[in-house]
């Protein structure tokens, strides 16, 4: 019974922690969502211990705790894959930004060269008095 109590407290602490992070805007909803779901599942499993046993019997796992481990690993996998996908997207955006920054920089250089009084000189220092 104390084991269930432990799981219950753990789930509640996790939920509170997620809520607090969200409240302080340290965590965005799309990432917090999954963790909240995980904490809720643990909470439900802790309150109704029979549920885990019933479910593990249903899928054919002899020891209920193995089902818990399996689901835990599965959810970690899902989170990792989601993060990889997000990272790929961010890399792509990052690349586009770098390209645009380079293109704009060249444009600024050209405009500066066109505006500069003494033509195509290399005076990058001749700025402030203009």
């Amino acid at each position, binding site marked *: 019974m104390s084991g269930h109590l432990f799981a219950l407290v753990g789930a509640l602490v996790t939920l509170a922690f997620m809520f607090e992070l969200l409240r302080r805007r340290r965590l965005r909803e799309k990432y917090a969502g999954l963790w909240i779901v995980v904490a809720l599942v643990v909470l439900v499993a802790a309150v109704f211990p029979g549920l885990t046993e019933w479910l593990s019997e249903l899928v054919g796992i002899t020891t209920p705790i193995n089902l818990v481990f399996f689901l835990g690993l599965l959810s970690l996998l899902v989170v990792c894959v989601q993060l990889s996908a997000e990272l790929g997207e961010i890399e*792509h955006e990052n*690349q586009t930004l*770098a*390209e*645009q*920054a*380079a*293109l*704009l*920089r*060249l444009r600024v250089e*050209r*405009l500066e060269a*066109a505006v500069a009084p003494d033509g195509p000189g*290399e005076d990058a220092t001749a700025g402030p008095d203009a």
Partner: protein
Amino acid sequence: MSAVSDAPEPRVLVVLPAWNESESLPGVLAEIREHLPGVGVLVVDDGSHDGTAAVARSLGVDVLELPFNLGVGGAMRAGFRYALEQGYPMVVQVDADGQHDPRDVPRIVERLAHSDVVIGARFAGTGSYEARGPRRWAMNVLAGVLSRVASTRLTDTTSGFRGAGPRAVELFARHYPAEYLGDTVESLVLASRNGLRIEQIGVSMRERSAGRPSQSPLKASVYLARACLALVISLVRRRERITPQEATVV
């Protein structure tokens, strides 16, 4: 707009993706100037640490300075975007390390009248470039599969010496693959999937004028594995078709 020069707009842009090539760049640019008087030249500094951009600027060519290293694919996509923005219908990629002979560029440009992508191939009879071991096998496998995909005979699919015509420039400005080997292998898959015609011509490949090539058996094996993975992924990837409006930049 910026009416600086009244010379007729050059129609071919030579793009040199350069990563820490400050030693070899002056020689390559001098050769380009000597043999290709009419072309536009753009150096894309791919996050170098050795002042490549400054060297290029001091030599009077346009420089796109990427804030950090994006790889050849990213550098080339920036180059294609620049070409599209500036109205160059044709782009020829030349490596900044001096391996590509600028005198081959006119032959590539000439073939762009018939094809959208022209590859300067190293194993097509000219020159004496040799690759061995796993790297060679990888090149053969890639050449075999990509020849089928592009329905033309290609022998050197990883060559960085290539030209792109108007349709290819438009496509690549938007979708040039930036991942590892994407600039060579995947870009060919992308081009043929979008109905572009690809061909190759033989070119001679020279020794690097500076710096050191990175090759070892281990690296070659990793190259083999990654090349095959890149090929398989690009072949099964969902098709991306573009419309002309989509390709406009900035």
